[in-house]
């Protein structure tokens, strides 16, 4: 009985091992493109797909426009207007032999009336349970507009949460320097944030800091972005206002009592 159980378990293990091996997947290279073009021009690029399995694989290929998770963009219109809607794939599916490789050509025919800006899209390749993707940025040359803004700020006493959005027309890198100042004028520089945002993208960043005393605070956020862009934003916030008010009230009452006693003595 023991031997039979062992044999059955061995069989299950072998089948599991085989299915895991069979799902080795495939590779899609390169993973990200940054292409530049003038309106009216056509660019052709090639990606390579490699089957990593000992069995043939059919890979389905689709083009996906600019997408960002909910809350990760400034507005729907901005997202849509920066989407690559001029991509053409040479095939919608490819049969790849075991351990073989195939290429796929992508054509980007930039319309003549396309506004100068960055446009984004993704090539999705799916086979069975595995998926690979290649990100594309097509920069249509023309007037550059770099505009990074702070669109939200909050602080819970230990963590500053900042939402930064790109209102420009191209991917822009930035550095945000944070300074918080308490009621007594004591300032604290927080760790700077360095990142880049795609056009119409909005990201939330969190910066940890040591907990401050209860009271009103002011945050100064200095943004340096793109080639020479600069912006400064100020935000006021409270740290544990209820504690500050209770202590404030106690101090006031104590002062009032003290003054009253002082008058009576006189």
């Amino acid at each position, binding site marked *: 009985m023991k031997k039979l159980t062992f044999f059955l378990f061995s069989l299950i293990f072998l089948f599991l091992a085989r299915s895991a091996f069979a799902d080795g997947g495939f*590779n899609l*290279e*390169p993973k*990200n*493109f*940054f*292409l*530049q*073009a*003038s309106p009216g021009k056509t*660019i052709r*690029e*090639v*990606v*390579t797909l*490699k089957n990593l399995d000992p069995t043939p694989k059919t890979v389905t290929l689709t083009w996906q426009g600019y997408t960002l998770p909910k809350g990760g963009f400034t507005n729907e219109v901005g997202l849509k207007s920066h989407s690559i809607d001029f991509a053409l794939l040479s095939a919608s599916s490819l049969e790849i032999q075991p*351990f*073989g*490789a195939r*290429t796929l050509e992508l054509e980007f025919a930039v319309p003549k009336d396309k506004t100068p800006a960055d446009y984004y899209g993704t090539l999705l390749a799916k086979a069975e349970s595995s998926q690979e993707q290649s990100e594309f*940025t097509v920069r249509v*040359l023309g007037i550059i507009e770099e505009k990074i803004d702070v669109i939200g700020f909050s602080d819970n006493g230990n963590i500053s949460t900042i939402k930064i959005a790109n209102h420009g027309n191209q991917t822009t890198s930035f550095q945000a320097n944070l300074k918080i100042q308490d009621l007594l004028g004591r300032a604290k520089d927080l760790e700077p944030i360095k990142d880049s945002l795609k056009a119409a993208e909005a990201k939330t960043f969190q910066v940890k800091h040591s907990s401050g005393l209860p009271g009103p605070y002011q945050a100064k956020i200095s943004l340096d972005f793109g080639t020479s862009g600069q912006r400064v934003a100020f935000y006021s916030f409270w740290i544990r206002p209820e504690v500050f008010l209770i202590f404030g009230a106690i101090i006031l009452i104590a002062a009032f009592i003290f003054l009253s006693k002082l008058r009576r003595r006189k």
Partner: protein
Amino acid sequence: MIKKIFWGYLSISVSLLFFAVMINYAQADTTPKQSDVTITAIVPETTVTFSGFAPASSTVTIKEGGSSIGTATTSPGGTFTKTIISSPGLHDFSLYYTDTAGRTTPETYFNGINLPAHVDTPVSNIHLPPTIALSKSQISQGESTLVFGQGAPGSTVHVFLNGAEKFNGVIGGGSDWQFLLSSGYSTGANSLYAYLSRGGLADSVNSFTANLQVAPCKRSDLNCDGYVNLTDFSILLYWWGSNNETADTNDDGIVGLIDFSIMMFDWTGD
């Protein structure tokens, strides 16, 4: 009299006409004129053109700052050309390719390329390295493995085993190269890499390194030819009764009947 009146009338009319024209001209001159002038000019883009040699039908990828900025498919003759729109100033580019079997090469770097505005800058005669692979990456002493890959047709491939050149040959029109490695390696870890040379061009950078693990000879294979046969039996008989390390398979300090029994068990013939 009539003549005088006529001449007087004529001179007054001409004078009035002259004044009217002058006033009109003066008025027209003081009024600011606005007109749209459209000047259409084609300003050449700042471009860089990469050209060179790689295996036929391979995909050459050009990179800058971690992103792929262009790809090109090589011709059947193993040449490629790609023009990319860029910006004026200094640039660091790198190139690699993926061959028809999906193997890749290390990147070849072109740092500090200065691109003047509105002209094309050629980066030519790029000689990309070969790809390299092994049919078996683990062998036993005495066995052989096929070393193969692809490279630009017409280039000479130089293959190095543990730092010493082991093979060289001109790559044919199919872009494939190969050779059978059957000796010269050592027990344990071995490394192989290759580069390409071509008349009039700089040598390519080295390929990726292929690692070959060589296990000691099979048990009882005393001459390490991959077989346990009569030759090994002869060697065993020669060392019979001695403490020869090679023939003493069970390490009991003496070559004897037990070693012979093991040899019979491992017998492969041929």
